[in-house]
């Protein structure tokens, strides 16, 4: 049905009868981004020859703003990998999350690692330069495929949902029926698509749904709903109901869920199964966390009890945070810090964590899996974050090591405070490697590794005392300070020394943004294990921490976990790390920004986050409580 050769002359070889009447894929609206003007011109010429409608730009930011301004203005994006202003993979993530457009990567670099990176970041294709026109002739397939997948997913989800609601006895039949009908409709669709003549165009058009823009709030709502349902069990229909957003269709939710899962999976690393990130994390980390949990003294259990959040939501938050831009709306999540904790605890299967350490571990694990970048953003519920943070702290070293394949768990499980440090180091190192990938927030991690570990030590002792709600973010900034000092100031971090005053402030912050914090923290933890350590570091200042802990406790969640607050702090740090890391990892889309926003107002972290360049997502949390001014820089 295509006439790719139309532009170049008569193409007698067109098969099928649709050659004449079916204009598709002509008119495909392509946005091509490349900093190389020669390539850009050549590509434009080639694409025009394919009868596509081409828009070219040489800067990623311009491309993003173009895409945002014309939500439905493009069908596909082609982007170069190496660009001076923004990494191609980062752009890829942004586009995938915000606009849900297929993105093709291209580069003169044909090394396997880079191609794999493209795949893991969700690129639909990878072209090696010099790009030939034949390769461009077929890019329309990605557009069609994506639309069909969305259609199928929504249909499939629907059938799955329906089946799930029936009894087992009926399930088979109903599912069979559904499947059958789904397949049938799918087949119908295929037939339609294959049809020649104008039908194709119509079918294709019917595949085109008005693009839904997943704003930060919307995404937060989505993540909240997913977490509540459970990443594994979340079905688009239920998510849709929970989100209760007018105008949102199940298909939209289904496709977004798909992407979200991919994102989670990517963040989670190889070992993590996307749906089971939370669980897998926890299990995997159990052994390692065991010691940690004890060390941390986080009373996750207490948290668990206090928290009312369903474990799922917490896990989801984490996942959500990691996977995608986040913007879990606070209200949507309504993740209470307490609930988050409780959620976490039950979720955390690892016994160790359960009580202070165990819970933490779990958290960390969860966090780990969650894409670092996204976490901050996604976790709208501050509470979650906190929990996570704490957990992260506990398992900080561990989780980081696990996920990040960086230095491996340096920290010996046994040493409580030292463990934290180590964890941090591990985290740091882990995060560092991650960070180094992305240009953005690497600053924190590299240097942080060393500093953080130190910080953690201090912090670990403090941890139990502080009930910093996700304050960990602040903590992170603090820890980052150290890092900054050593490595290279992260940009806003002025914290030269791990000033644990931040924690004090942090808890306050979290109080305001309990929901967000919780969520974010969870997310942050994963990615920013470093931060956790950082936060730990922050908590080192005993006195301040103590105040903070109390403060945090009061504010944040009125939780009963003093120790947890400390954990939070760590989490905060890690959160921050995560957010930063998120920025690094190209995949830090909005979630990261969200996270950033939380902190940016307050402390270094936010500054760091900002530096990351992540678009600040609407922050529902206002950290009025926190004033990081106290942090000695």
């Amino acid at each position, binding site marked *: 049905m295509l006439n790719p050769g139309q532009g170049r002359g008569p193409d007698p070889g067109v098969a099928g009868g649709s050659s004449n009447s079916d204009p598709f894929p002509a008119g495909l609206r392509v946005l091509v981004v490349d900093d190389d003007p020669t390539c850009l011109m050549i590509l434009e010429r080639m694409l025009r020859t394919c009868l596509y409608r081409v828009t070219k730009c040489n800067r990623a930011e311009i491309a993003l703003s173009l895409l945002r301004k014309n939500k439905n203005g493009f069908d596909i994006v082609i982007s170069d990998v*190496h660009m001076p202003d923004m990494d191609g993979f980062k752009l890829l993530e942004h586009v995938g999350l915000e606009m849900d457009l297929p993105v093709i990567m291209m580069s*003169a670099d044909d090394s396997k690692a880079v191609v794999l990176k493209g795949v893991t970041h969700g690129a639909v294709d990878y072209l090696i330069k010099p790009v030939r*026109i034949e390769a461009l002739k077929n890019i329309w397939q990605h557009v069609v495929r994506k639309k069909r997948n969305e259609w199928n997913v929504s249909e499939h989800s629907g059938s799955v949902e329906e089946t799930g609601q029936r009894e087992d006895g009926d399930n088979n039949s109903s599912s069979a029926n559904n499947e059958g009908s789904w397949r049938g409709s799918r087949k119908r669709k295929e037939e339609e698509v294959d049809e020649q003549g104008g039908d194709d165009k119509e079918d294709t058009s019917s595949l085109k749904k008005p693009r839904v823009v997943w704003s930060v709030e919307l995404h937060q709502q989505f993540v909240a709903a997913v977490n509540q349902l459970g990443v594994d069990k979340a079905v688009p229909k239920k998510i849709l109901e929970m989100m209760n957003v007018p105008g949102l269709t199940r298909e939209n939710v289904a496709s977004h869920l798909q992407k979200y899962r991919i994102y989670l999976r990517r963040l989670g690393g190889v070992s993590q199964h996307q749906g089971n990130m939370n669980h897998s994390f926890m299990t995997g980390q159990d052994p390692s966390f065991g010691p940690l949990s004890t060390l941390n003294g986080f009373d996750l259990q207490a948290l668990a009890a206090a928290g009312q959040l369903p474990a799922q939501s917490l896990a989801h938050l984490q996942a959500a945070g990691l996977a995608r831009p986040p913007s879990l709306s606070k209200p949507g999540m309504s993740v209470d810090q307490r609930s988050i904790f409780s959620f976490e605890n039950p979720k955390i299967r690892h016994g160790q964590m359960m009580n202070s350490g165990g819970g933490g571990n779990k958290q960390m694990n969860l966090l780990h899996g969650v894409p670092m970048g996204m976490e901050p953003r996604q976790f709208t519920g501050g509470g979650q974050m906190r929990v996570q943070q704490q957990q992260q702290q506990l398992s900080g070293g561990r989780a980081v090591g696990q996920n990040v394949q960086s230095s491996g768990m340096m920290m010996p499980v046994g040493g409580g405070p030292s463990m934290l440090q180590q964890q941090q180091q591990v985290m740091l190192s882990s995060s560092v490697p991650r960070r180094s990938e992305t240009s953005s927030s690497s600053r924190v991690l590299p240097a942080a590794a060393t500093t953080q570990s130190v910080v953690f030590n201090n912090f670990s002792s403090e941890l139990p005392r502080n009930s910093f709600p996700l304050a960990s973010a602040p903590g992170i900034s603090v820890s980052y300070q150290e890092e900054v000092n050593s490595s290279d100031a992260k940009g806003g971090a002025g914290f030269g020394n791990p000033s644990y005053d931040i924690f004090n402030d942090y808890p306050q912050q979290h109080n305001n943004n309990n929901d967000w914090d919780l969520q974010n923290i969870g997310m942050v933890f994963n990615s920013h294990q470093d931060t956790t350590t950082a936060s730990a570091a922050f908590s080192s200042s005993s006195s301040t921490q103590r105040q903070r802990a109390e403060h945090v406790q009061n504010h944040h969640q009125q939780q009963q976990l003093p120790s947890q607050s400390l954990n939070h702090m760590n989490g905060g740090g890690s959160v921050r790390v995560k957010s930063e890391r998120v920025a690094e990892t190209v995949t830090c889309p909005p979630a990261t920004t969200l996270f950033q926003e939380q902190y940016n107002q307050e402390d270094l972290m936010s500054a760091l986050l900002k530096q990351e360049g992540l678009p600040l997502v609407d922050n529902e949390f206002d950290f009025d409580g926190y004033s990081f001014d106290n942090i000695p820089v």
Partner: protein
Amino acid sequence: MQRQVALIKQSLFDQGYLDEQFIELEELQDDANPNFVEEVATLYFKDSARLISNIEQALERGSFDFNRLDNYMHQFKGSSTSIGASKVKTECTMFREYCRVGNAEGWQDRRGPRRLHVGPSNTGTDQ
């Protein structure tokens, strides 16, 4: 005159300065875009001149920033492959190898010949 241009062009192909990618570009040219190749070539020379001067500056400094050099080279390589300047591309690849191993002298030997490659007379509008 046209024959001369054709001869020069052919020699460029024979010597390996240009490869099939250039032919692809020529095929993109048609009546609607009669000067496409010339435009692209001009753009390429301008851009690569800028890149080369950047590279030279980087090389003149006492300590070589291999990372930055590598970046420049990558860009240069990308442009060259897109236009079909295969020899330039090969040189770029080798240069990057030198950079990768931190060999500062290795590339110097190649610097001379490489400069010859990028000449404005390489590609002319072929009629």
